[in-house]
Protein backbone atom coordinates (compact mmCIF):
# COMPACT_ATOMS: atom_id res chain seq x y z
CA UNK A 1 0.00 0.00 0.00
CA UNK A 2 2.69 2.51 1.00
CA UNK A 3 4.76 1.36 -1.97
CA UNK A 4 1.99 2.21 -4.38
CA UNK A 5 1.51 5.62 -2.88
CA UNK A 6 5.17 6.47 -3.22
CA UNK A 7 5.25 5.24 -6.80
CA UNK A 8 2.26 7.34 -7.64
CA UNK A 9 4.03 10.43 -6.41
CA UNK A 10 7.25 9.69 -8.29
CA UNK A 11 7.10 12.31 -11.08
CA UNK A 12 7.79 14.89 -8.41
CA UNK A 13 11.01 13.15 -7.32
CA UNK A 14 12.48 13.24 -10.80
CA UNK A 15 12.08 16.95 -11.38
CA UNK A 16 15.31 17.77 -9.64
CA UNK A 17 17.17 15.05 -11.50
CA UNK A 18 16.42 16.60 -14.84
CA UNK A 19 18.39 19.64 -13.84
CA UNK A 20 21.16 17.51 -12.39
CA UNK A 21 21.49 15.64 -15.63
CA UNK A 22 22.87 18.88 -16.99
CA UNK A 23 25.31 19.30 -14.10
CA UNK A 24 26.71 15.82 -14.77
CA UNK A 25 27.21 16.68 -18.42
CA UNK A 26 28.93 20.02 -17.73
CA UNK A 27 32.54 18.83 -17.29
CA UNK A 28 32.44 16.92 -20.58
CA UNK A 29 30.73 19.85 -22.34
CA UNK A 30 33.37 22.25 -21.04
CA UNK A 31 36.28 19.97 -21.91
CA UNK A 32 35.03 19.22 -25.43
CA UNK A 33 33.95 22.81 -25.99
CA UNK A 34 37.28 24.24 -24.87
CA UNK A 35 39.72 21.62 -26.17
CA UNK A 36 37.91 20.20 -29.19
CA UNK A 37 35.33 22.60 -30.67
CA UNK A 38 37.17 25.86 -29.94
CA UNK A 39 40.45 24.63 -31.52
CA UNK A 40 38.50 23.53 -34.62
CA UNK A 41 36.89 26.98 -34.83
CA UNK A 42 40.33 28.60 -34.54
CA UNK A 43 41.53 26.44 -37.45
CA UNK A 44 38.46 27.53 -39.43
CA UNK A 45 39.26 31.20 -38.77
CA UNK A 46 42.96 30.81 -39.60
CA UNK A 47 42.10 29.07 -42.87
CA UNK A 48 40.73 32.43 -44.06
CA UNK A 49 43.76 34.47 -42.92
CA UNK A 50 47.07 35.27 -44.58
CA UNK A 51 50.50 34.00 -43.65
CA UNK A 52 52.56 36.63 -41.86
CA UNK A 53 56.30 37.35 -42.01
CA UNK A 54 59.11 36.90 -39.49
CA UNK A 55 57.65 34.20 -37.32
CA UNK A 56 54.08 35.50 -37.38
CA UNK A 57 52.12 32.46 -38.51
CA UNK A 58 48.89 34.20 -39.48
CA UNK A 59 47.60 37.74 -39.87
CA UNK A 60 44.93 39.78 -41.64
CA UNK A 61 43.66 40.42 -44.36
CA UNK A 62 40.89 37.91 -44.66
CA UNK A 63 41.14 35.89 -47.86
CA UNK A 64 39.92 32.76 -49.61
CA UNK A 65 43.32 32.46 -51.31
CA UNK A 66 44.21 29.39 -49.19
CA UNK A 67 41.23 27.43 -50.43
CA UNK A 68 41.96 28.39 -54.05
CA UNK A 69 45.56 27.34 -53.41
CA UNK A 70 44.57 23.98 -51.96
CA UNK A 71 42.06 23.25 -54.71
CA UNK A 72 44.48 23.91 -57.57
CA UNK A 73 47.67 22.30 -58.83
CA UNK A 74 49.74 20.77 -57.25
CA UNK A 75 47.86 20.36 -53.97
CA UNK A 76 44.56 19.21 -55.44
CA UNK A 77 46.32 16.16 -56.92
CA UNK A 78 47.16 15.00 -53.40
CA UNK A 79 43.46 15.21 -52.54
CA UNK A 80 42.40 13.17 -55.56
CA UNK A 81 45.11 10.58 -54.93
CA UNK A 82 44.12 10.30 -51.26
CA UNK A 83 40.47 9.83 -52.15
CA UNK A 84 41.49 7.22 -54.71
CA UNK A 85 43.69 5.33 -52.23
CA UNK A 86 40.99 5.50 -49.54
CA UNK A 87 38.31 4.20 -51.94
CA UNK A 88 40.57 1.42 -53.23
CA UNK A 89 41.50 0.41 -49.66
CA UNK A 90 37.80 0.22 -48.79
CA UNK A 91 37.04 -1.99 -51.80
CA UNK A 92 39.97 -4.34 -51.07
CA UNK A 93 38.98 -4.54 -47.38
CA UNK A 94 35.45 -5.40 -48.50
CA UNK A 95 36.62 -8.13 -50.88
CA UNK A 96 38.82 -9.72 -48.19
CA UNK A 97 36.61 -8.85 -45.22
CA UNK A 98 33.18 -9.96 -46.39
CA UNK A 99 34.03 -13.64 -46.97
CA UNK A 100 36.10 -13.58 -43.78
CA UNK A 101 33.16 -12.27 -41.73
CA UNK A 102 31.01 -14.92 -43.40
CA UNK A 103 33.54 -17.60 -42.47
CA UNK A 104 33.61 -16.47 -38.81
CA UNK A 105 29.82 -16.24 -38.50
CA UNK A 106 29.29 -19.70 -39.98
CA UNK A 107 31.59 -21.56 -37.56
CA UNK A 108 29.53 -24.29 -35.94
CA UNK A 109 30.73 -24.04 -32.34
CA UNK A 110 30.67 -20.90 -30.22
CA UNK A 111 34.32 -21.45 -29.27
CA UNK A 112 35.50 -21.52 -32.88
CA UNK A 113 33.48 -18.41 -33.63
CA UNK A 114 35.05 -16.54 -30.72
CA UNK A 115 38.53 -17.78 -31.61
CA UNK A 116 38.33 -16.85 -35.29
CA UNK A 117 36.91 -13.45 -34.34
CA UNK A 118 39.56 -12.94 -31.66
CA UNK A 119 42.30 -13.64 -34.22
CA UNK A 120 40.99 -10.72 -36.29
CA UNK A 121 40.63 -8.34 -33.34
CA UNK A 122 43.96 -8.99 -31.63
CA UNK A 123 46.27 -7.46 -34.28
CA UNK A 124 43.99 -4.44 -34.28
CA UNK A 125 44.60 -3.90 -30.56
CA UNK A 126 48.36 -3.78 -30.95
CA UNK A 127 50.28 -0.58 -31.50
CA UNK A 128 49.57 1.06 -34.86
CA UNK A 129 53.16 2.23 -35.40
CA UNK A 130 54.53 -1.24 -34.75
CA UNK A 131 52.07 -2.83 -37.18
CA UNK A 132 53.01 -0.34 -39.88
CA UNK A 133 56.69 -0.98 -39.18
CA UNK A 134 56.05 -4.73 -39.49
CA UNK A 135 54.75 -4.14 -43.03
CA UNK A 136 57.83 -2.06 -43.80
CA UNK A 137 60.07 -4.92 -42.65
CA UNK A 138 58.10 -7.38 -44.84
CA UNK A 139 58.42 -5.22 -47.96
CA UNK A 140 62.08 -4.22 -47.58
CA UNK A 141 64.65 -4.92 -50.31
CA UNK A 142 66.08 -7.78 -48.21
CA UNK A 143 62.76 -8.53 -46.52
CA UNK A 144 60.97 -11.89 -46.46
CA UNK A 145 58.75 -11.11 -49.47
CA UNK A 146 61.55 -10.16 -51.84
CA UNK A 147 63.77 -12.98 -50.57
CA UNK A 148 61.01 -15.54 -51.13
CA UNK A 149 60.25 -14.27 -54.63
CA UNK A 150 63.95 -14.35 -55.53
CA UNK A 151 64.43 -17.84 -54.11
CA UNK A 152 61.48 -19.00 -56.19
CA UNK A 153 63.19 -17.54 -59.24
CA UNK A 154 60.25 -15.29 -60.03
CA UNK A 155 62.36 -12.14 -59.92
CA UNK A 156 66.09 -11.54 -60.37
CA UNK A 157 66.43 -8.21 -58.56
CA UNK A 158 64.59 -7.20 -55.38
CA UNK A 159 61.45 -5.18 -56.16
CA UNK A 160 61.20 -1.61 -54.88
CA UNK A 161 58.16 -2.01 -52.63
CA UNK A 162 58.75 0.40 -49.75
CA UNK A 163 58.12 4.07 -50.64
CA UNK A 164 55.49 3.27 -53.25
CA UNK A 165 51.75 3.84 -53.40
CA UNK A 166 51.31 0.07 -53.43
CA UNK A 167 52.97 -0.11 -50.00
CA UNK A 168 50.60 2.57 -48.67
CA UNK A 169 47.62 0.67 -50.04
CA UNK A 170 48.87 -2.56 -48.49
CA UNK A 171 49.59 -0.90 -45.14
CA UNK A 172 46.16 0.75 -44.99
CA UNK A 173 44.39 -2.49 -45.92
CA UNK A 174 46.37 -4.32 -43.26
CA UNK A 175 45.58 -1.73 -40.58
CA UNK A 176 41.87 -1.24 -41.25
CA UNK A 177 40.70 -4.73 -42.30
CA UNK A 178 39.33 -5.50 -38.80
CA UNK A 179 37.11 -2.38 -39.03
CA UNK A 180 35.46 -3.94 -42.08
CA UNK A 181 35.13 -7.44 -40.65
CA UNK A 182 33.47 -6.59 -37.31
CA UNK A 183 30.29 -4.81 -38.52
CA UNK A 184 29.79 -7.32 -41.36
CA UNK A 185 30.21 -10.16 -38.88
CA UNK A 186 27.51 -8.59 -36.69
CA UNK A 187 25.17 -8.50 -39.70
CA UNK A 188 25.92 -12.02 -40.96
CA UNK A 189 25.58 -13.45 -37.44
CA UNK A 190 21.97 -12.26 -37.33
CA UNK A 191 21.28 -13.53 -40.84
CA UNK A 192 18.77 -16.38 -41.12
CA UNK A 193 20.47 -18.98 -43.32
CA UNK A 194 17.24 -20.83 -44.05
CA UNK A 195 16.46 -17.93 -46.39
CA UNK A 196 19.23 -19.15 -48.70
CA UNK A 197 17.68 -22.61 -48.74
CA UNK A 198 14.34 -21.02 -49.56
CA UNK A 199 15.93 -19.07 -52.43
CA UNK A 200 17.59 -22.28 -53.70
CA UNK A 201 14.29 -24.10 -53.52
CA UNK A 202 12.71 -21.35 -55.56
CA UNK A 203 15.28 -21.95 -58.28
CA UNK A 204 17.91 -19.31 -57.54
CA UNK A 205 21.52 -20.46 -57.82
CA UNK A 206 24.03 -19.50 -55.13
CA UNK A 207 25.17 -16.36 -56.91
CA UNK A 208 21.61 -15.12 -57.35
CA UNK A 209 20.70 -16.08 -53.78
CA UNK A 210 23.73 -14.14 -52.58
CA UNK A 211 22.98 -11.05 -54.64
CA UNK A 212 19.24 -11.00 -53.99
CA UNK A 213 18.98 -12.34 -50.42
CA UNK A 214 22.25 -12.44 -48.46
CA UNK A 215 23.80 -9.19 -49.65
CA UNK A 216 20.70 -6.96 -49.23
CA UNK A 217 20.11 -8.29 -45.71
CA UNK A 218 23.73 -7.83 -44.64
CA UNK A 219 24.04 -4.46 -46.39
CA UNK A 220 23.88 -2.42 -43.14
CA UNK A 221 27.07 -4.20 -41.99
CA UNK A 222 28.73 -3.59 -45.35
CA UNK A 223 27.86 0.11 -45.26
CA UNK A 224 29.02 0.52 -41.65
CA UNK A 225 32.27 -1.36 -42.35
CA UNK A 226 32.95 0.68 -45.47
CA UNK A 227 32.51 3.98 -43.66
CA UNK A 228 34.70 2.78 -40.76
CA UNK A 229 37.49 2.05 -43.26
CA UNK A 230 36.93 5.04 -45.55
CA UNK A 231 37.00 7.78 -42.91
CA UNK A 232 40.29 6.98 -41.18
CA UNK A 233 42.02 6.17 -44.49
CA UNK A 234 41.11 9.59 -45.93
CA UNK A 235 42.84 11.16 -42.90
CA UNK A 236 45.71 8.65 -42.75
CA UNK A 237 49.05 10.08 -41.75
CA UNK A 238 51.32 7.42 -40.24
CA UNK A 239 50.94 4.81 -43.00
CA UNK A 240 51.81 7.07 -45.97
CA UNK A 241 54.54 8.70 -43.88
CA UNK A 242 56.31 5.44 -43.03
CA UNK A 243 55.50 3.32 -46.10
CA UNK A 244 54.97 5.90 -48.85
CA UNK A 245 57.98 8.18 -48.59
CA UNK A 246 57.66 10.86 -51.26
CA UNK A 247 55.70 8.57 -53.60
CA UNK A 248 52.58 7.93 -51.54
CA UNK A 249 51.84 11.36 -50.08
CA UNK A 250 48.33 11.78 -48.73
CA UNK A 251 46.32 14.72 -47.34
CA UNK A 252 47.61 14.00 -43.83
CA UNK A 253 51.23 14.48 -44.94
CA UNK A 254 50.33 17.62 -46.88
CA UNK A 255 48.74 19.11 -43.77
CA UNK A 256 51.62 18.12 -41.49
CA UNK A 257 54.28 19.69 -43.70
CA UNK A 258 52.36 22.99 -43.53
CA UNK A 259 52.71 22.99 -39.75
CA UNK A 260 56.32 21.86 -39.49
CA UNK A 261 59.36 24.06 -40.15
CA UNK A 262 58.77 26.65 -42.87
CA UNK A 263 55.18 25.69 -43.49
CA UNK A 264 52.15 27.83 -44.10
CA UNK A 265 49.59 27.59 -41.29
CA UNK A 266 46.66 29.20 -43.12
CA UNK A 267 47.16 26.87 -46.09
CA UNK A 268 47.44 23.84 -43.77
CA UNK A 269 44.27 24.97 -41.97
CA UNK A 270 42.41 25.24 -45.27
CA UNK A 271 43.57 21.74 -46.28
CA UNK A 272 42.44 20.46 -42.89
CA UNK A 273 39.00 22.02 -43.30
CA UNK A 274 38.56 20.56 -46.79
CA UNK A 275 39.51 17.13 -45.42
CA UNK A 276 36.98 17.51 -42.62
CA UNK A 277 34.36 18.41 -45.20
CA UNK A 278 35.18 15.20 -47.08
CA UNK A 279 34.78 13.17 -43.90
CA UNK A 280 31.46 14.90 -43.14
CA UNK A 281 30.22 14.15 -46.66
CA UNK A 282 31.14 10.49 -46.19
CA UNK A 283 29.24 10.48 -42.87
CA UNK A 284 26.15 12.10 -44.37
CA UNK A 285 26.29 9.57 -47.20
CA UNK A 286 26.48 6.82 -44.60
CA UNK A 287 23.46 8.07 -42.65
CA UNK A 288 21.41 8.36 -45.84
CA UNK A 289 22.47 4.96 -47.18
CA UNK A 290 21.88 3.10 -43.94
CA UNK A 291 18.46 4.72 -43.56
CA UNK A 292 17.59 3.52 -47.07
CA UNK A 293 18.93 0.03 -46.44
CA UNK A 294 16.86 -0.20 -43.24
CA UNK A 295 13.77 0.95 -45.11
CA UNK A 296 14.22 -1.53 -47.97
CA UNK A 297 14.77 -4.39 -45.54
CA UNK A 298 11.66 -3.48 -43.59
CA UNK A 299 9.60 -3.59 -46.79
CA UNK A 300 10.76 -7.10 -47.53
CA UNK A 301 8.24 -9.70 -46.40
CA UNK A 302 10.99 -11.92 -44.91
CA UNK A 303 12.10 -12.51 -41.26
Amino acid at each position, binding site marked *: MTLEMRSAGRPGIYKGEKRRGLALALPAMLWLGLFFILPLLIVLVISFLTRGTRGVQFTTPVTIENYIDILSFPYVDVFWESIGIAALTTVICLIIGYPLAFFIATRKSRIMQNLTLFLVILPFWTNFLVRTYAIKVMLGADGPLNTTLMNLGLIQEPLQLVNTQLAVLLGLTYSYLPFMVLPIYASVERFEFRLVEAANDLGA*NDLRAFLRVVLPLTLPGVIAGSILVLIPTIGAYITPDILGGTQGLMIGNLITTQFRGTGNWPRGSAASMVMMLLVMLALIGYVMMSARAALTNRRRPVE
Partner: protein
Amino acid sequence: MEQTAALTPRPAPGAIEFNQGKIARDMLIRRIGKIGLAFNPIFAYFFLWAPILLLVLFSFNDSRTVATWRGFTLQWYANVFNNVVGTEARFSTNLMLQSFGNSIVVGIVATILATTIGTMVALSLARGNFPGKRLLDGLLFLPVVIPEITQGISLLIFFNVVLDFVNQTFGTTAQLGFGSIIIGHVAFNVSYVAIVVRARLSDMNPKLEEAARDLGANEWRTFWRVTFPLIVPGVIAGSLLAFTLSLDDFVITFFVSGVGTTTLPVFVYGLLKLSVTPEINAISTLILLLSTLLIGTAMLLLGRDAVKL
Protein backbone atom coordinates in the same frame (compact mmCIF):
# COMPACT_ATOMS: atom_id res chain seq x y z
CA MET B 1 10.91 -25.18 -38.43
CA GLU B 2 7.64 -26.71 -39.61
CA GLN B 3 6.32 -23.23 -40.16
CA THR B 4 9.13 -22.34 -42.54
CA ALA B 5 8.65 -25.54 -44.46
CA ALA B 6 5.00 -24.74 -44.83
CA LEU B 7 5.74 -21.20 -45.96
CA THR B 8 8.29 -22.25 -48.58
CA PRO B 9 6.32 -22.83 -51.75
CA ARG B 10 7.59 -25.87 -53.61
CA PRO B 11 6.67 -26.30 -57.24
CA ALA B 12 4.73 -29.42 -58.02
CA PRO B 13 7.07 -32.25 -59.15
CA GLY B 14 5.72 -32.22 -62.66
CA ALA B 15 6.36 -28.50 -63.05
CA ILE B 16 10.16 -28.72 -62.77
CA GLU B 17 11.94 -28.44 -66.06
CA PHE B 18 15.31 -30.14 -65.90
CA ASN B 19 17.72 -27.92 -67.73
CA GLN B 20 21.07 -29.72 -67.72
CA GLY B 21 22.97 -26.59 -68.73
CA LYS B 22 21.55 -24.54 -65.90
CA ILE B 23 22.22 -27.25 -63.34
CA ALA B 24 25.81 -27.60 -64.50
CA ARG B 25 26.28 -23.85 -64.32
CA ASP B 26 24.73 -23.62 -60.86
CA MET B 27 26.98 -26.43 -59.60
CA LEU B 28 30.01 -24.62 -61.02
CA ILE B 29 28.97 -21.41 -59.25
CA ARG B 30 28.56 -23.35 -56.01
CA ARG B 31 31.99 -24.94 -56.42
CA ILE B 32 33.67 -21.59 -57.11
CA GLY B 33 31.94 -20.15 -54.06
CA LYS B 34 33.08 -23.04 -51.88
CA ILE B 35 36.69 -22.77 -53.08
CA GLY B 36 36.61 -19.00 -52.53
CA LEU B 37 35.20 -19.38 -49.04
CA ALA B 38 37.81 -21.98 -48.16
CA PHE B 39 40.73 -20.03 -49.59
CA ASN B 40 39.84 -16.56 -48.31
CA PRO B 41 40.22 -17.17 -44.54
CA ILE B 42 43.61 -18.85 -45.06
CA PHE B 43 44.84 -15.85 -47.02
CA ALA B 44 43.23 -13.31 -44.65
CA TYR B 45 44.66 -14.80 -41.45
CA PHE B 46 48.06 -15.18 -43.09
CA PHE B 47 47.90 -11.53 -44.17
CA LEU B 48 46.89 -10.37 -40.66
CA TRP B 49 49.38 -12.43 -38.72
CA ALA B 50 52.47 -13.06 -40.89
CA PRO B 51 53.94 -9.53 -40.56
CA ILE B 52 53.59 -9.49 -36.76
CA LEU B 53 54.85 -13.04 -36.22
CA LEU B 54 57.79 -12.61 -38.61
CA LEU B 55 58.72 -9.34 -36.88
CA VAL B 56 58.82 -11.14 -33.52
CA LEU B 57 60.76 -14.04 -35.03
CA PHE B 58 63.37 -11.79 -36.64
CA SER B 59 63.93 -9.93 -33.38
CA PHE B 60 65.61 -13.18 -32.24
CA ASN B 61 67.45 -13.77 -35.51
CA ASP B 62 71.24 -14.03 -35.36
CA SER B 63 71.74 -11.79 -38.39
CA ARG B 64 71.49 -8.09 -39.06
CA THR B 65 69.23 -8.71 -42.07
CA VAL B 66 65.69 -10.04 -42.08
CA ALA B 67 66.29 -12.16 -45.19
CA THR B 68 66.90 -15.59 -43.66
CA TRP B 69 66.88 -17.30 -40.27
CA ARG B 70 70.43 -17.82 -38.94
CA GLY B 71 69.79 -19.02 -35.41
CA PHE B 72 68.53 -17.72 -32.07
CA THR B 73 70.05 -14.77 -30.27
CA LEU B 74 69.14 -12.27 -27.57
CA GLN B 75 71.85 -9.91 -28.79
CA TRP B 76 69.42 -7.25 -30.06
CA TYR B 77 67.54 -7.11 -26.76
CA ALA B 78 70.85 -6.75 -24.93
CA ASN B 79 71.77 -3.93 -27.32
CA VAL B 80 68.51 -2.12 -26.68
CA PHE B 81 69.29 -2.02 -22.98
CA ASN B 82 72.95 -1.11 -23.53
CA ASN B 83 72.55 2.07 -25.54
CA VAL B 84 73.08 0.53 -28.99
CA VAL B 85 70.52 0.64 -31.76
CA GLY B 86 72.23 0.03 -35.09
CA THR B 87 73.33 3.31 -36.59
CA GLU B 88 70.96 5.50 -34.58
CA ALA B 89 73.19 8.05 -32.90
CA ARG B 90 70.33 9.65 -30.99
CA PHE B 91 69.25 6.46 -29.28
CA SER B 92 69.83 5.98 -25.61
CA THR B 93 68.34 3.42 -23.28
CA ASN B 94 67.73 6.16 -20.74
CA LEU B 95 65.72 8.20 -23.21
CA MET B 96 63.66 5.14 -24.13
CA LEU B 97 62.87 4.30 -20.51
CA GLN B 98 62.13 7.96 -19.77
CA SER B 99 59.63 8.13 -22.66
CA PHE B 100 58.07 4.92 -21.44
CA GLY B 101 57.68 6.48 -18.00
CA ASN B 102 56.15 9.60 -19.58
CA SER B 103 53.67 7.42 -21.49
CA ILE B 104 52.58 5.68 -18.29
CA VAL B 105 52.16 8.95 -16.36
CA VAL B 106 50.19 10.56 -19.21
CA GLY B 107 48.13 7.39 -19.65
CA ILE B 108 47.17 7.11 -15.98
CA VAL B 109 46.26 10.78 -15.50
CA ALA B 110 44.36 11.00 -18.81
CA THR B 111 42.52 7.76 -18.05
CA ILE B 112 41.39 8.88 -14.59
CA LEU B 113 40.13 12.22 -15.92
CA ALA B 114 38.49 10.76 -19.03
CA THR B 115 36.83 7.93 -17.08
CA THR B 116 35.37 10.32 -14.50
CA ILE B 117 34.11 12.89 -17.00
CA GLY B 118 33.03 10.25 -19.51
CA THR B 119 31.03 8.23 -16.96
CA MET B 120 29.34 11.38 -15.71
CA VAL B 121 28.26 12.46 -19.18
CA ALA B 122 27.10 8.92 -20.01
CA LEU B 123 24.90 8.95 -16.89
CA SER B 124 23.46 12.34 -17.73
CA LEU B 125 22.70 11.28 -21.31
CA ALA B 126 21.12 8.00 -20.26
CA ARG B 127 19.05 9.29 -17.33
CA GLY B 128 18.82 13.05 -17.63
CA ASN B 129 16.63 15.19 -19.80
CA PHE B 130 17.78 18.72 -20.50
CA PRO B 131 17.82 21.13 -23.43
CA GLY B 132 20.69 20.45 -25.83
CA LYS B 133 20.93 16.77 -24.91
CA ARG B 134 20.66 15.60 -28.52
CA LEU B 135 23.31 18.09 -29.59
CA LEU B 136 25.68 16.85 -26.89
CA ASP B 137 24.97 13.29 -27.97
CA GLY B 138 26.09 14.10 -31.51
CA LEU B 139 29.04 16.14 -30.27
CA LEU B 140 30.36 13.15 -28.31
CA PHE B 141 30.72 11.12 -31.50
CA LEU B 142 32.74 13.80 -33.27
CA PRO B 143 36.15 13.09 -31.68
CA VAL B 144 35.71 9.44 -32.73
CA VAL B 145 35.09 10.24 -36.41
CA ILE B 146 37.18 13.39 -36.99
CA PRO B 147 40.63 12.41 -38.31
CA GLU B 148 43.34 12.44 -35.65
CA ILE B 149 45.47 14.71 -37.77
CA THR B 150 42.78 17.42 -37.65
CA GLN B 151 42.58 17.14 -33.85
CA GLY B 152 46.37 17.23 -33.65
CA ILE B 153 46.88 20.40 -35.65
CA SER B 154 43.87 22.18 -34.15
CA LEU B 155 45.24 21.53 -30.63
CA LEU B 156 48.71 22.66 -31.76
CA ILE B 157 47.30 25.96 -33.03
CA PHE B 158 45.08 26.34 -29.96
CA PHE B 159 47.95 25.86 -27.50
CA ASN B 160 50.18 28.15 -29.50
CA VAL B 161 47.60 30.93 -29.44
CA VAL B 162 46.76 30.42 -25.77
CA LEU B 163 50.38 30.08 -24.61
CA ASP B 164 51.45 33.14 -26.60
CA PHE B 165 48.68 35.13 -25.02
CA VAL B 166 49.34 33.89 -21.48
CA ASN B 167 53.11 34.33 -21.73
CA GLN B 168 52.82 37.85 -23.11
CA THR B 169 50.18 38.92 -20.62
CA PHE B 170 51.71 37.45 -17.47
CA GLY B 171 55.37 37.29 -18.49
CA THR B 172 55.48 33.55 -17.90
CA THR B 173 57.33 30.95 -20.00
CA ALA B 174 54.69 28.22 -20.17
CA GLN B 175 55.19 25.76 -23.04
CA LEU B 176 53.88 22.52 -24.51
CA GLY B 177 54.36 19.52 -22.26
CA PHE B 178 52.54 17.03 -20.06
CA GLY B 179 49.62 19.41 -19.62
CA SER B 180 48.91 19.78 -23.31
CA ILE B 181 49.36 16.05 -23.99
CA ILE B 182 46.97 15.07 -21.19
CA ILE B 183 44.39 17.66 -22.29
CA GLY B 184 44.52 16.28 -25.84
CA HIS B 185 44.24 12.65 -24.72
CA VAL B 186 41.29 13.37 -22.43
CA ALA B 187 39.55 15.27 -25.27
CA PHE B 188 39.32 12.15 -27.43
CA ASN B 189 39.07 9.58 -24.62
CA VAL B 190 35.98 11.14 -23.00
CA SER B 191 33.97 10.10 -26.06
CA TYR B 192 35.18 6.49 -26.03
CA VAL B 193 34.49 6.11 -22.29
CA ALA B 194 31.05 7.73 -22.64
CA ILE B 195 30.08 5.44 -25.54
CA VAL B 196 31.15 2.27 -23.71
CA VAL B 197 29.55 3.22 -20.37
CA ARG B 198 26.38 4.35 -22.09
CA ALA B 199 26.02 1.01 -23.85
CA ARG B 200 26.25 -0.64 -20.43
CA LEU B 201 23.70 1.77 -18.93
CA SER B 202 21.19 1.09 -21.69
CA ASP B 203 21.50 -2.66 -20.98
CA MET B 204 20.61 -1.99 -17.35
CA ASN B 205 17.04 -2.11 -16.10
CA PRO B 206 16.08 1.40 -14.86
CA LYS B 207 13.42 -0.22 -12.66
CA LEU B 208 16.20 -1.23 -10.28
CA GLU B 209 16.97 2.42 -9.61
CA GLU B 210 13.29 3.22 -9.23
CA ALA B 211 12.96 0.38 -6.74
CA ALA B 212 15.86 1.74 -4.68
CA ARG B 213 14.30 5.20 -4.69
CA ASP B 214 10.93 3.76 -3.73
CA LEU B 215 12.59 1.97 -0.85
CA GLY B 216 13.79 5.30 0.46
CA ALA B 217 17.36 5.65 -0.83
CA ASN B 218 18.32 9.14 -1.93
CA GLU B 219 19.89 9.73 -5.34
CA TRP B 220 23.46 9.63 -4.04
CA ARG B 221 22.88 6.36 -2.21
CA THR B 222 20.99 4.90 -5.18
CA PHE B 223 23.90 5.69 -7.46
CA TRP B 224 26.62 4.17 -5.27
CA ARG B 225 24.63 1.16 -4.07
CA VAL B 226 22.68 0.22 -7.25
CA THR B 227 23.71 2.00 -10.44
CA PHE B 228 27.48 2.08 -10.02
CA PRO B 229 27.98 -1.60 -9.06
CA LEU B 230 25.95 -2.55 -12.14
CA ILE B 231 27.90 -0.39 -14.57
CA VAL B 232 31.35 -1.19 -13.12
CA PRO B 233 32.24 -3.58 -15.99
CA GLY B 234 31.44 -0.81 -18.46
CA VAL B 235 33.49 1.72 -16.51
CA ILE B 236 36.46 -0.68 -16.32
CA ALA B 237 36.14 -1.47 -20.03
CA GLY B 238 35.99 2.23 -20.84
CA SER B 239 39.02 3.05 -18.73
CA LEU B 240 41.06 0.19 -20.22
CA LEU B 241 40.13 1.40 -23.68
CA ALA B 242 41.13 4.93 -22.72
CA PHE B 243 44.46 3.77 -21.24
CA THR B 244 45.27 1.69 -24.35
CA LEU B 245 44.37 4.54 -26.71
CA SER B 246 46.41 6.98 -24.66
CA LEU B 247 49.41 4.65 -24.53
CA ASP B 248 49.23 4.02 -28.31
CA ASP B 249 48.46 7.54 -29.46
CA PHE B 250 51.05 8.97 -31.76
CA VAL B 251 49.47 11.58 -34.05
CA ILE B 252 47.96 13.92 -31.45
CA THR B 253 50.89 13.55 -29.03
CA PHE B 254 53.31 14.24 -31.89
CA PHE B 255 51.81 17.72 -32.31
CA VAL B 256 51.30 18.73 -28.68
CA SER B 257 54.35 17.27 -26.91
CA GLY B 258 57.21 19.54 -25.94
CA VAL B 259 60.92 19.15 -25.25
CA GLY B 260 61.55 16.45 -22.64
CA THR B 261 57.99 15.16 -22.64
CA THR B 262 58.37 12.63 -25.47
CA THR B 263 56.10 9.61 -25.08
CA LEU B 264 57.06 6.09 -26.15
CA PRO B 265 55.21 6.13 -29.53
CA VAL B 266 56.79 9.49 -30.46
CA PHE B 267 60.21 8.14 -29.47
CA VAL B 268 59.73 4.91 -31.43
CA TYR B 269 58.45 6.81 -34.46
CA GLY B 270 61.75 8.67 -34.64
CA LEU B 271 63.58 5.34 -34.78
CA LEU B 272 61.45 3.34 -37.17
CA LYS B 273 60.75 6.06 -39.70
CA LEU B 274 64.37 6.03 -40.78
CA SER B 275 65.67 2.49 -40.75
CA VAL B 276 65.03 -1.19 -40.22
CA THR B 277 67.42 -2.71 -37.67
CA PRO B 278 67.16 -5.84 -35.54
CA GLU B 279 67.20 -3.65 -32.42
CA ILE B 280 64.08 -1.81 -33.59
CA ASN B 281 62.51 -5.23 -34.21
CA ALA B 282 63.32 -6.04 -30.56
CA ILE B 283 61.77 -2.78 -29.30
CA SER B 284 58.69 -3.43 -31.46
CA THR B 285 58.39 -6.92 -30.02
CA LEU B 286 58.54 -5.49 -26.48
CA ILE B 287 55.74 -3.04 -27.36
CA LEU B 288 53.68 -5.90 -28.82
CA LEU B 289 54.24 -7.80 -25.57
CA LEU B 290 53.04 -4.77 -23.60
CA SER B 291 49.88 -4.49 -25.76
CA THR B 292 49.20 -8.20 -25.38
CA LEU B 293 49.57 -8.01 -21.59
CA LEU B 294 47.11 -5.11 -21.49
CA ILE B 295 44.57 -6.95 -23.63
CA GLY B 296 45.07 -10.10 -21.58
CA THR B 297 44.32 -8.15 -18.39
CA ALA B 298 41.25 -6.61 -20.01
CA MET B 299 39.99 -10.03 -21.13
CA LEU B 300 40.51 -11.54 -17.68
CA LEU B 301 38.74 -8.64 -15.99
CA LEU B 302 35.85 -8.49 -18.40
CA GLY B 303 35.35 -12.04 -19.61
CA ARG B 304 32.73 -12.21 -22.32
CA ASP B 305 32.04 -8.47 -22.20
CA ALA B 306 35.40 -7.85 -23.82
CA VAL B 307 34.26 -9.33 -27.15
CA LYS B 308 31.56 -6.70 -27.40
CA LEU B 309 34.17 -3.96 -27.54
